[in-house]
């Protein structure tokens, strides 16, 4: 690891004023330090955010939840928040299914959204792929079983975060603070297109930090579920995941968010699938239609075509679980 200078900040002002190309914020460090050890990243200065109280805490407000950027995945996954927890069920599940207990204890939601691609060409310090300023995506003509099937052009990375997928389904906003003030972005806007040397795939500027994630409160009739498929039972990145949040009124879907993880450079809104559900009851036919529409537009590389089938399976399974949730609630069971 390259030497660097370090400072522990106690206020946001200090952080924002200090950040630039060579000075990066440090929160949980679970991704950043790994990248620094392999030499893929080498900041000259690190500002630790850990002592900034303004970045802590999960707060339930009238209009929604405000989740401080330093909130760990363990805290998000914790079942200790009583009945209100149900509003963030999809996020809790996604956090609980991320990484390992030790990583969840350290990793923050802010850092989770900013983590760099897990693509094995990108993470290999010996190769220079398009994202690292090289001339082509090495996965496109190489080993690509874990790569993107949706929305990819020059780079085929997939975003590794589970919580990001859930946050997209909850229509969350990311609050950023920089020298020019505060801005909030929807998840979809927060993740731009992959650009060379904008390695984390977000639109966050060098002077900005994530201060919070703001989640509008789902209605009382809304329920969410997270389904993750991976090669190892735990502690693995998703091959494919689906975060589904549905509002049911009088037996019909009045709002639906179906978001796929592991398939694109950002959480992927399956708009067509959502459209198939709204106005329908959660019947087998409607669910099937939504599942098969979820991957509309998918283009597979030589090895990752199976993700189409998996994504549809994940959506199908998510809808089945929601059908049971709504069913048991309406009959008063469970």
């Amino acid at each position, binding site marked *: *690891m*390259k*030497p*660097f*200078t*370090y*400072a*522990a*900040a*106690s*206020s946001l*002002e*200090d952080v924002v004023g*200090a950040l630039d190309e060579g000075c990066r914020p*440090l929160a949980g*460090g*679970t991704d950043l*330090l*790994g990248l*620094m*050890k*392999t030499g893929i990243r080498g900041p000259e*200065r*690190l*500002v*630790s955010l*850990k002592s900034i109280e303004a970045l802590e805490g999960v707060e339930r407000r009238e209009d929604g939840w405000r989740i401080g950027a330093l909130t760990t995945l*363990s805290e998000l996954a914790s079942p200790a928040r009583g009945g209100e927890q149900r509003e963030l069920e999809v996020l809790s599940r996604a956090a609980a299914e991320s*990484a*390992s*207990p*030790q*990583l969840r*204890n*350290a990793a923050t939601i802010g850092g989770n959204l900013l983590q760099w691609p897990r693509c094995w060409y990108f993470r290999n310090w010996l190769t220079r792929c398009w994202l690292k300023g090289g001339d082509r995506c090495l996965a496109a003509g190489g080993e690509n079983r874990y790569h993107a099937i949706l929305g990819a052009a020059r780079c085929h990375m997939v975003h590794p975060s589970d919580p990001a997928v859930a946050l997209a389904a909850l229509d969350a906003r990311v609050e950023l603070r920089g020298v020019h003030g505060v801005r909030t972005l929807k998840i979809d806007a927060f993740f731009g297109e992959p650009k060379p040397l904008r390695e984390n795939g977000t639109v966050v500027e060098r002077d900005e930090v994530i201060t919070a994630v703001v989640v509008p409160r789902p209605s009382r009739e809304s329920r969410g579920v997270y389904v993750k498929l991976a090669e190892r039972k*735990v*502690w693995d990145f998703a091959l494919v995941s689906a975060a589904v949040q549905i509002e049911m009124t009088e037996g019909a879907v009045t709002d639906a968010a179906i978001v796929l993880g592991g398939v694109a450079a950002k959480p992927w809104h399956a708009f067509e699938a959502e459209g198939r559900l709204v106005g329908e009851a959660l019947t087998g036919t409607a669910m099937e239609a939504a599942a098969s529409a979820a991957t509309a537009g998918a283009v597979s590389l030589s090895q990752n075509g199976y993700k189409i089938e998996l994504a549809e399976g994940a959506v199908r399974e998510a809808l089945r679980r929601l059908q049971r949730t709504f069913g048991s609630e309406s009959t008063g069971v469970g």
Partner: protein
Amino acid sequence: MSLDWLGPGRVPVTLNVNGREVEVTIEPRRTLLSVLREELGLTGTKEGCDEGNCGACTVLVDGRTVYACLVLAVDCSGRCVRTVEGLRRAENLHPVQEAFVDQDAFQCGFCTSGQIVSAVSLLEQNPKPHRGDIERAMAGNLCRCGAYPNIVAAVLEAARLEEAPDAKD
């Protein structure tokens, strides 16, 4: 206010390790793992991958398990660090250590320190875990010898020992 920059050379850092205050003079880039092992001689915490993928370096920081290889030591200033060396109660083994011996919950023993720290943390939060709880809590500690069935048995036994210290045998 302004930031107080430390490094890149060696700077004094005060840590609380296993209940004792210790001062080390280190570069900010040093991980907690390397400081524990190389500065403090606490080699019970193992370096298995140095990238947060194995669990052999699991320690408790402020009561929570973390991978010491993915934490900067300088970032632990003012926090309480507990390692496998700090688990003994007086001259006795910690009940989790005792149960690991009793259940043959390891073979090569390289992952054992980390396993034990994770198990201690689990039992501090959940004194009566079920098998599923154990699998979730211990998911971040790899054991290549595959002693997992005995690790589950050891955590269950440790829970019994903690509940009724004389219940053994």
